[in-house]
């Protein structure tokens, strides 16, 4: 037997007061960490190829970071994603503490709105770059930037769809053990994306401007 307070898996645990749903979470959450770690390799190597291209040779006399980076927009994106990570944390907590399903849905909905706002600003940023001719085919540096930031945006888009699906599942099925386990894993994914964003704003945007 494990200790009563021992965590079964990394990440927020439902807790023993959830009985079966908590005990069954161990295997699937471990599997989800395996996925997250493979995703981390994908992001890490995309970062590595970006870094090898972000130099004078890679910029090929094209737009430089100072020409294309809109720091106000990037800061707004950063704050939106961070607040969204917090509101998702609150959603997970309301579920862990067995609050009414509509409370969890409300916090998930707020996280979704913030995630969509992030994507809106990201799209605006991409459009502004494209209008200045800073398209991926212009230089190696821009290819690296579009792939890395684009890869993250695709992940956030997938996360937004996943939140919509989970809201629908909670509304239809209620907080069923399987649904709780899925929300738990979505939470890991959502927090993971915010961690990747730390690397993006530090290396691509702030590092680029120095």
């Amino acid at each position, binding site marked *: 037997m494990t*200790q*009563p*307070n*021992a*965590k*079964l*898996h*990394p*990440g*927020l*645990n439902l*807790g*023993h*007061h959830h009985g079966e749903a908590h005990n069954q979470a*161990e295997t699937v959450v*471990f599997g989800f*960490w*395996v996925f997250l*770690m*493979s995703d*981390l*390799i994908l992001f*890490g*190597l995309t*970062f*590595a*190829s970006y*870094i*090898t291209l972000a*130099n004078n*040779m890679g910029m090929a006399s094209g737009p430089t970071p100072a020409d294309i980076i809109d*720091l106000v927009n990037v*800061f707004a994106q*950063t*704050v939106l994603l*961070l*607040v969204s*990570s*917090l509101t998702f*944390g*609150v959603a997970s*907590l309301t579920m*862990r*503490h067995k609050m009414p399903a509509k409370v969890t849905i409300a916090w998930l909905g707020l996280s979704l709105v913030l995630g969509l706002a992030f994507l809106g600003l990201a799209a605006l940023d991409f459009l502004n770059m494209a209008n200045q001719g800073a398209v991926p085919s212009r230089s190696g540096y821009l290819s690296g930037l579009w792939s890395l930031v684009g890869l993250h945006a695709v992940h956030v888009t997938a996360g937004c769809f996943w939140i919509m699906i989970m809201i629908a599942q909670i509304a239809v099925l209620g907080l069923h053990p399987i649904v709780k386990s899925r929300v738990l894993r979505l939470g*890991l994914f959502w*927090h*993971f994306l*915010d*961690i990747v964003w*730390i*690397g993006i*704003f*530090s290396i691509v945007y*702030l*590092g680029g*401007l*120095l």
Partner: protein
Amino acid sequence: MRNPDFKAELRAYLLGFGLALALTVVPFAVVVFGPGTQGLAIILITLCALAQLVVQLRYFLHLDLSEQKREDLHLVLFTVLLLGIMSIGTIWILGNLAIRM
């Protein structure tokens, strides 16, 4: 564990959020207001990013060194090792080639 304390756990999330926000504002301020040299700014941004990484792992992902299955920790550490070898190797080799061009 029968009745976990919601408020205490919420406070932990808010603390993590506050720390992460501060560690975000500082590097942006360093770049916008630009005090000090470029080298100093790079060190500050790197330290803030690493600190925020730890804060988010600790407060949002609840990944720490406390009682939990060792396999999970092994998984994370092994992934970081592989990623380190591959990404540092890539940056090193291609950076070296770029200098020689």
